C-alpha cells in the first residue's frame, strides 16, 4: 500500500499558510505531470462554480416564459436563444448544471459509499457473507445500467430523490468489487494482523485499519463514475423518466427540443454540449487521479488481476 503518496499533508503545527503552500505545490506538480487531467479539473471546478452560483450568473429566470420572444435564435438579448415558450436557454443550461451535478454527485457518493462499505465487509469477513454478497453484486451487474435505473425510477416514482436513488443503486456493485479486492489484500498485512493479535474486534479493525487504505481507490472510483452518472441522469431526463419538468436539467431540455417538428438547432445543441464538456472534464480528471493515486486501478492492472483469477 505504498501507493498513497499524496504529500499534501505537512507537519502539524506548521500553520495554515504552509498547508496552503503545500496544497499549491501539489497542484502545480500534478498539473505539470498530468496537464490534461489538470485542465479537466479546472473545467470541472468551473462547472461546479457555475452550478453553485447559478442565481447570480443566470441572466434570466430559467422558468419564466416570455411569449414575445419564443423560438428566438441566439442574439444579444439571449445569448443561446430561447425555447418554444420563450425561456432563456443560457439560464436554463446554467441552472441545469445545478440539477445535473447535484444528482450525479449525490448518486455517486451514495452508491460508491454503500458499495465500498459493503466491499470492505466482504473482503475482510470473507466466508459465507462474502460468497452471498458476490452473487448479489453479480445479479446487480447483470442489468445494463440505464435499464436498471429506468426500472427503479419507474417503481419509486420520478422525483429528484428517486433519480438519485436509482442511479446510486447502479453504482453499488462497482464500488463493492474494487474495494473488496483492496480489503482482501489489506487484511493479510502485518499491521492488521497485529491489530487482531491485540484483540481488536472485526468492526474496529475494519474501521480503523482497513477503511483508511480504501480512501484512495474510493476517490478514484467516485471521480471516474461521475461522468457515467451525469450521462445516465441526462438519458433518464431525455427519455422522460428523470427529474420531472419544469425543473431545468440538460436531459429535460433535450427532450423538450425534440417535441418540435423541426427542432431549433440551438435547443438541441447547447444542453448536449454542456453534458459533453462536463463528462469530458470529469473523465480526464478521473484518469489523472487514477494514475496519480492508485496505479492498481489502471486498466493494465485490472486486466492482470482478471487474467490471474481466470488461469
Amino acid at each position: 500500500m505504498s501507493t498513497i503518496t499524496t504529500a499534501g499533508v505537512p507537519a502539524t503545527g506548521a500553520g495554515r499558510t504552509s498547508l496552503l503552500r503545500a496544497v499549491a505545490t501539489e497542484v502545480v506538480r500534478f498539473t505539470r505531470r498530468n496537464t490534461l487531467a489538470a485542465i479537466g479539473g479546472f473545467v470541472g471546478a468551473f462547472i461546479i462554480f457555475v452550478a453553485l452560483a447559478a442565481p447570480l450568473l443566470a441572466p434570466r429566470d430559467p422558468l419564466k416564459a416570455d411569449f414575445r420572444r419564443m423560438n428566438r435564435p441566439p442574439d444579444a438579448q439571449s445569448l443561446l436563444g430561447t425555447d418554444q415558450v420563450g425561456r432563456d436557454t443560457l439560464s436554463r443550461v446554467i441552472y441545469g448544471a445545478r440539477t445535473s451535478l447535484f444528482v450525479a454527485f449525490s448518486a455517486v457518493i451514495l452508491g460508491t459509499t454503500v458499495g465500498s462499505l459493503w466491499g470492505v465487509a466482504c473482503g475482510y469477513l470473507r466466508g459465507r457473507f462474502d460468497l452471498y454478497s458476490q452473487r448479489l453484486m453479480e445479479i446487480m451487474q447483470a442489468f445494463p445500467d440505464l435499464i436498471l435505473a429506468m426500472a427503479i425510477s419507474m417503481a419509486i416514482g420520478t422525483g429528484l430523490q428517486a433519480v438519485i436513488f436509482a442511479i446510486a443503486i447502479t453504482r453499488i456493485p462497482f464500488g463493492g468489487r474494487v474495494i473488496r479486492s483492496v480489503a482482501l489484500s489489506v487484511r493479510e498485512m502485518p499491521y492488521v494482523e497485529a491489530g487482531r493479535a491485540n484483540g481488536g474486534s472485526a468492526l474496529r479493525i475494519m474501521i480503523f485499519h482497513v477503511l483508511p487504505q480504501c480512501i484512495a481507490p474510493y476517490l478514484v472510483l467516485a471521480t471516474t463514475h461521475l461522468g457515467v452518472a451525469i450521462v445516465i441522469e441526462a438519458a433518464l431526463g431525455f427519455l422522460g423518466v428523470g427529474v420531472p419538468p419544469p425543473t431545468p436539467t440538460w436531459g429535460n431540455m433535450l427532450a423538450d427540443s425534440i417535441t418540435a417538428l423541426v427542432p431549433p438547432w440551438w435547443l438541441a445543441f447547447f444542453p448536449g454540449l454542456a453534458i459533453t464538456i462536463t463528462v469530458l472534464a470529469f473523465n480526464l480528471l478521473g484518469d489523472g487521479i487514477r494514475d496519480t493515486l492508485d496505479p492498481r486501478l489502471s486498466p493494465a492492472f485490472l486486466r492482470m488481476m482478471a487474467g490471474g483469477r481466470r488461469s
Partner: protein
Amino acid sequence: MRKYLARRAMYAAITLIGVSVTIFIIMRVLPGDPLVAILGVEGHARMTLADRERIMADLGLSAPLPVQYVHWLRDIASGQLGKSFFRGETVAQQILHRGPISAEIAILSLFVSWLVGLPVGILSAFKPNSIPDGVARALSVLFIAIPGFWLGMLIVLALLFWFGYKSPLVIVHLWEDPWQNFQIVVGPAMVLGLAQGAYIARMSRSCLLEVIGDDFVRTARAKGLGEGLVVMRHALPNALLPVITISGVLLGFVLGGSVAVEQAFGVPGLGRAMVAAVIERDIIVVQNLVLLYAVIFVVVNILVDISYAWLDPRIRYG
C-alpha cells in the same frame, strides 16, 4: 472444460433466477399499489373498491406475490411472457415484432466498433506518442464522453436541415425491404458503434503496447521480421483477448444506450417499447423486457468467457 462449462452454466442460471426475482420485487413491492401506477392517483381514487378488486384479479395482480411470481415463470416457460395492460398483444409478440430492428442495430454497431476501433488502436500502438496517436486518443476520449443520444439528435437534425431527409419511422424488416431497413438501422448503429469503437481503440492500443514489450516479440524482431509482420502476426493475436472481453462488457452499454439512441433517431425498436412501457407504467411489459436485456447481457458474457478457452490455449479450466 466440460466441468467448467457446467459450472459456468449453473452460476448463470443462479444469476438469472436472482435477476428475475429482483425485477419482480422492484416491480411489485416498491411501488405499493400497482393500480395507482396504472391509473394514476386520481383515476384510482375515482373507482369503487369492487372495481379495483375486479381489475386487479383480471390483471393477475391480486394473488399472493409468490404465486404471482410462479405465474410469471409459467408465462415465460409458455413463451408468451404475459400480456401488456394497454395493448392487445403479448410481450412475446412485441419482442418478435420490434426485436429484430434492435438486434440488427446492436450487431451492426459491434461490427462498426471493431472496424473502426481496432485499426485505430493498431495505428496508435505502432507509433506511440506520435501525432496520429495523439489525434486517435483525443478522438477516443471525445467519443467516450459524447452521449450517444445527443449525437443521434444532431445527426437527425443535420440531415433534416441540410438534405430534408428523414429515415423511415415505421418498422421495415430486413426481409421486407433491405434498403429501407438499412436506412433505419444505420444511424443508431454508427452512433453506438463509434462510442464502443473508442473504448476498443483505447484498449487495443494499451494491450498492444504491453505485448510489444514481451520477449517473444523481441525474438520475432531479432529474426528479422518486418515491423508489420511482427505486430500483425505475433503481437496482435496475443493482445486481442482483453479487447474481446471489453466488447462483451460494452454490450451492457449498447443495450442500455440503444434505448436512448433509438428514441433520438425515432427508431421503432425494442428500446422505444421499453420507454413507452415505463412511461405508461405497464409493469408486465417492463419486467419482461428488463429480464430479456439481462438475459442477453449475461449469456453473451458467458460466451465471451468460454471463447477465451478457444482463443488462448494457455488457459486451462479446472
